[in-house]
């Protein structure tokens, strides 16, 4: 079952006017074989085999992989349906390893397709097909890689996350002290402006030697 070529062309090709007779068979795709209902473990003949390996999948063409993906997808849906039915009745599904094997097969198909895609991208564009990753420094100071997301408009001020580079003692101190200096310069500048504003003519005239008058 696992290694045979699927002939499910009809499922891929969409037909608008499906006859009413086929509906019961269409819905049967969501459920296991009726002989397997209520079993504690599947009979040896009905048991599935192992999952597809990457080596085996690399031998297949893209169309075959595409078709296999949908076979696995439908199988996974069926198994999930059966699993949920068993859970709702507080029972164990027979051979639950089937879900894991299907998942492994699907992951490997994805990996193989990604390999091929990556190769094409690197040949043609020079960049990998993998989603772009950016390093970001978290609030705690740890750097981690995050997948880049596309946006319609540029980021708002101070909303974008960046990587702050790791600095050694001197450089770190230098940054801090420089920032402190800049801060104080700015503060003094603002202060001066304020004082200049509040300065009166009398203050200029009597700037030296005049009696200091305090506002009590």
């Amino acid at each position, binding site marked *: 079952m696992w290694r045979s070529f699927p002939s499910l062309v*009809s*499922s*891929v090709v*969409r*037909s608008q006017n*499906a006859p*009413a007779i086929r*509906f*019961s068979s*269409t*819905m049967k*795709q*969501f*459920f296991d074989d*009726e002989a397997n*209902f*209520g*079993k*504690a473990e599947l009979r040896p003949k009905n048991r599935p085999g192992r999952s597809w390996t990457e080596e085996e999948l690399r031998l297949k063409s893209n169309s075959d992989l*595409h078709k296999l*993906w*949908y076979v696995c*997808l*439908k199988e*996974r*849906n069926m198994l*999930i*349906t059966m*699993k*949920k*039915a068993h859970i*709702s*009745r507080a*029972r164990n599904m027979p051979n639950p390893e089937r879900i894991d094997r299907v998942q492994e097969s699907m992951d490997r*198909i*994805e990996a193989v*397709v*990604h390999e091929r895609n990556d190769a094409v991208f690197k040949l043609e564009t020079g960049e990998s097909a993998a*989603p772009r990753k950016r390093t970001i420094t978290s609030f705690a100071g740890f750097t981690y890689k995050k997948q880049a*997301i*596309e*946006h*319609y408009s540029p980021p708002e001020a101070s909303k974008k996350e960046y990587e702050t580079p790791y600095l050694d003692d001197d450089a770190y101190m230098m940054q801090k002290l420089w920032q402190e200096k800049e801060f104080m310069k700015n503060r003094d500048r603002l202060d001066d402006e304020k004082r200049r504003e509040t300065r009166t003519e009398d203050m200029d005239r009597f700037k030296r030697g005049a009696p200091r008058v305090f506002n009590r």
Partner: protein
Amino acid sequence: MTTRLARLWQPGNPQRRVFLPDFWLAVVESPDVGRNKLPRNCVKFEVDPRMSRHDIREYLTKIYDLPVRDVRTEVQMGDITWNSKHDHQYKKAMWKDDDKKFAYVFMSKGFTFSYPKMFDSLEEDLELIKAKQQQEDLKDKLNEGYANRNRRVGRFLAV
């Protein structure tokens, strides 16, 4: 792969296509009586929470070839385990189950679907009956009706 990568679409771009969809769908039971009873042309699915109504419709139409007419979705919040659920002011959530998304898919008018009865004849029950039957048969063969298995063995009358 493509379902996990949210690529933007802008006018002028070609139609966005997902070649290897990662979504899962499971058929779920619905009650035969009461307020949650559904008509026969309606099937209740539990779907991947990332799916939209359009996604569900396309999925069922193209992959399963079902005559979908209307899709309605409903998100059910997962159960929360509180440390003390009656203390409304200071209770803390210790655990929350995942949210589930259900889709009520209405097919065309002539469609009928009823959830199959899977657990009527359970293998374990049948085997139990068989084992009991075997035991019954064995009784006749092994002279169980006349033998006294509970007799005192190993004691001499003389002693």
